[in-house]
């Protein structure tokens, strides 16, 4: 059974169509990522799923419950972690958790057990009496996650959960998420980070309110045209100049001491090397690399998903 | 050059904030009308009882005169002091005039005593009304003695003894006249100090202050740029309020408009300086607003707005002169009611100038240093 079914979802803010006929399904115990540029409609979609907005059209089903017909029942089934820290900074970790428990009117004994389990899982037990406002970014996220999980939801919605969080804390956070599918929790998250997107089972790419593509990270990366080459040289502007104007050149991106070149032609490595040598540009290395999710993202967004 | 850019930015920002603009123009008007009438201490229709135990032509004459003022309204006659006291106790009246038997006789002999009972729980109204009555009684006594003396062909010196106070400039002691100009000052303080106290705190809260201080601007330029537009609006608001005070409330304006204008500029500078100082020292808008709010209390209590400065405890008096409102009140009341000119008010103007400089320079020095 699908944990999330979105069908023909449309939402407008005044004249602006924030979401335009979006449909997708998320299987149970899947980690599903929504990626897209700023203003693509990711947060709107998350808020619609969370029942915080009412769509202009379309259907949303969470855990078999029609969100629009029975929003209260849907709330019990979902946990939501918003983009901005939205817990009480002047309450302690424990008090924040207790507050959520009270709001969901959970059974106290069950809730106490869940609280203890989450505190141990997130390693926050040591800091239970610390005020939430005085935690580091990574720990705030863990607390937010705990609050979203304490009523044992079937679907967890995470809106850019690790924006501004450093890689170390991000890795910890993802380690926590990795255990949830095994417990039957389905995760839908949005992220601007491609390395994070790569951790999802499946992705949906959204731009201008439209769904451009869905698939695994590999499937999306495979849609990138041409061959990706990394050219390492001390004189990157000269490399750029030598390649400029070539019909096979699909794009280039500067990476500090290297240039990533996307080349649409046979025997790309040799062709590029020959062209550079002909121009008298000294290079240390030209190697083929795998196109990443980021390349796919950039290409799909710039072509409107047509590639 | 840089200052022009800063000014332009402040003006643009202010234009984008319709609430502030409306506040600056409408709030002073509403406040002035409200406060002027609410703070009006004129007393009308205080319920009065009369106990006439003398029953003489004189006592009837006095009773008639006492009830002819609008300050009191006659609730009725009572036979005994006890009955009057009971009514006062029950709140049915606030004042009682007791004329003991033998009053007329005593008056003829030289001194007569009447008694006024007042409900102390209504001390202000009762006090003011009792004051009115005392003046009527005193006048009556002198008049009666004079009449008698003349009737008997004796000479009595009365003129020098006249107890009636002559009230200058505001002969009817209309508190409205006294209050309305002061309300002008209060409204300016509350509004201007609040707006400026938010200004820097807001930039600090939003983080724009960091970005601004990363540019080569100097702190005094930032302060001045924030002060000028608000000051200009303050001057507009002050003019509007002044017009209302003169033409709607009907307070006579005896001084010169330029004098009031110049003084208002000085006053605004000091108030805005204080607002900026508060803002410079606050971490966020909430803190700034709270401090600014509490700073309006000394402006009301120490400045002579309610209690005269000469009436303050000696310990507090020096502080009164640190409050810009103290100086400005003297100026406003002086120009409105007394027609005082710059020549009479230079001490106050100097006071305002010194306070402005103090606040502004301290603000400029402190605001780059973040509160820890």
């Amino acid at each position, binding site marked *: 059974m699908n944990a999330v079914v979105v069908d023909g979802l449309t939402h407008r803010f005044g004249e602006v169509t924030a979401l335009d006929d979006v449909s997708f399904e998320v299987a149970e115990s899947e980690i599903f990522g929504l990626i897209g540029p700023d203003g693509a409609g990711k947060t709107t979609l998350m808020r619609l799923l969370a029942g915080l907005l009412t769509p202009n059209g379309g259907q949303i089903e969470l855990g078999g419950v029609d969100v629009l017909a029975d929003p209260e029942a849907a709330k019990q089934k979902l946990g939501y972690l918003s983009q901005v820290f939205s817990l009480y900074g002047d309450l302690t970790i424990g008090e924040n958790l207790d507050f959520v428990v009270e709001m969901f009117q959970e059974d106290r004994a069950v809730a106490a057990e869940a609280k203890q389990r989450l505190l141990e899982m997130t390693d926050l037990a040591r800091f239970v009496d610390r005020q939430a406002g005085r935690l580091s970014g990574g720990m705030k996220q863990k607390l937010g996650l705990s609050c979203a999980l304490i009523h044992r939801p079937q679907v967890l919605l995470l809106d850019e959960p690790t924006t501004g969080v450093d890689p170390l804390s991000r890795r910890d956070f993802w380690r926590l998420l990795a255990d949830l599918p095994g417990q039957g929790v389905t995760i839908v998250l949005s992220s601007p980070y491609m390395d994070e997107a790569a951790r999802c089972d499946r992705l949906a790419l959204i731009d201008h309110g439209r769904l451009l593509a869905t698939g695994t990270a590999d499937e999306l990366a495979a849609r990138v045209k041409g061959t990706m080459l990394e050219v390492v040289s001390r004189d990157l502007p000269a490399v750029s100049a030598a390649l400029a104007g070539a019909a096979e050149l699909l794009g280039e991106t500067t990476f500090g001491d290297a240039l990533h070149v996307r080349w649409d032609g046979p025997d790309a490595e040799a062709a590029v090397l020959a062209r550079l040598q002909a121009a008298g540009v000294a290079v240390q290395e030209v190697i083929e690399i795998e196109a990443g999710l980021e390349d796919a993202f950039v290409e799909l967004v710039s072509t409107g998903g047509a590639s | 050059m840089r200052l022009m*850019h800063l000014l332009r930015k402040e003006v643009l920002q202010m234009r984008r904030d319709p609430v502030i603009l409306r506040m600056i123009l409408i709030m002073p008007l509403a406040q002035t009308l409200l406060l002027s009438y609410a703070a009006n201490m004129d007393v009308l229709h205080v319920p009065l009882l009369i106990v006439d135990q003398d029953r003489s032509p004189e006592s009837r004459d006095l009773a008639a005169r006492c009830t002819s003022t609008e300050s009191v309204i006659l609730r009725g006659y009572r036979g005994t002091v006890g009955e009057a006291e009971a009514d006062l106790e029950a709140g049915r009246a606030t004042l009682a005039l007791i004329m003991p038997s033998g009053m007329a006789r005593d008056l003829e002999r030289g001194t007569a005593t009447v008694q006024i009972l007042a409900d102390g729980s209504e001390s202000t109204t009762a006090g003011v009304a009792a004051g009115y009555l005392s003046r009527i009684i005193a006048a009556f006594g002198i008049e009666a003695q004079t009449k008698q003396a003349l009737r008997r062909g004796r000479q009595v010196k009365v003129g020098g003894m006249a107890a009636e106070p002559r009230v200058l400039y505001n002969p009817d002691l209309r508190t409205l006249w006294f209050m309305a100009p002061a309300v002008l000052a209060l409204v300016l303080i509350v509004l201007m100090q609040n707006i400026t106290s938010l200004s820097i705190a807001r930039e600090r809260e939003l983080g724009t202050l960091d*970005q601004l201080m990363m540019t080569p601007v100097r702190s005094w330029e930032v302060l001045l740029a924030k002060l000028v537009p608000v000051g200009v609006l303050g001057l507009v608001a002050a003019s509007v309020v002044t017009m209302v005070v003169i033409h709607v409330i009907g307070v006579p304006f005896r001084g010169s408009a330029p004098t009031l204008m110049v003084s208002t500029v000085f006053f605004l500078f000091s108030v805005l300086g204080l607002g900026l100082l508060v803002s410079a020292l606050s971490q966020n808008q909430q803190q700034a607003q709270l401090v600014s709010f509490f700073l309006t209390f000394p402006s009301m209590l120490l400045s002579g707005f309610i209690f005269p400065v000469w009436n303050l405890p000696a310990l507090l008096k020096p502080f009164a002169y640190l409050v810009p409102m103290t100086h400005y009140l003297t100026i406003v009341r002086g120009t409105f009611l007394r027609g005082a000119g710059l020549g009479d008010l230079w001490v106050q103007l100097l006071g305002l100038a010194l306070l402005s400089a103090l606040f502004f320079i301290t603000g400029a020095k402190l605001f780059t240093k973040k509160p820890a």
Partner: protein
Amino acid sequence: MSQPALVVTDLVRKFGDFTAVDHVSLEVQPGEVFGFLGPNGCGKSTTIKMICGLLAPTAGRIVVDGLDVATQAEAIRARLGYVAQFFNLYDTLTVRENLLFFGGVYGVPAGELEQRVDHWIDRLDLGGVAGQRAGQISVGLQRSLALAAAVLHEPVMLLLDEPTSGVDPVARRAFFEVIAELAASGAAVLVTTHVMDEAERCHRLSLMNRGRLVTEGTPTEIRALAGGSIWQVEVAPAGRALTLAESRADLSAVALFGTKLQYRVAEENGTGAPEAVAEWLREQGITTGPPKPVRPTIEHVFLQVLRDAPEEQP
């Protein structure tokens, strides 16, 4: 050789007992994009603020373009451009008004101001929103606006504090193209980040942890610091495979990417080790594909360096 754009020597900043920046020294040359990496709270932003003159150092020396921050702060400000971690331009002013204002206070000559503002509006694709209030444009555009405001006066040294936090890859790419151009035209750029693909775009990197600089080098040099080799293998069921891999003391950098399990094998374990791990997983009942080598990223090195550091404090 031209004079360095920035020289920081033995910089220290204490907050009470806490040493936020501990004897940091670094140099940035004109034309160089210098990346400053480190976890939250490692002292990156504190260092930037001291270079900006927004915070006084406890000890140490900062020289920008030959001028000492301690004595010539005003002169230095005109040579610095600063993009803060959070959007801090005026949200009620339009994009254009913000640029005219900042150009103006930075002392861009009145005759050139309009022209430079137009140039940057055009270069950073802000034309469509030039008349909109800065508070109402998207995060990505706000970042572009902040960058434009910081470069109008052609600073010698550009300081970027996590400039693309929360920005999507398309906008991030465009942003870094502009930064590369600025560097190419001679500006020195210091950028703090913890987004690793940004780090890859710097000429030189410095990794900071707990107030100290831990390591420094070009991205290629930093990547070379990764010990052992990193491998990736398709697994099912993924969750159980992750738990199993984590239970092995000889594996590090264990992480799950969808259905792919990543792990690092230490060099001394020999060349057969990666396959041995997959074999072992199969014995435990996990379905696996063949392990494939993964090119180490700066993030791998970053996590490796930090792994041994004392645990995170709240």
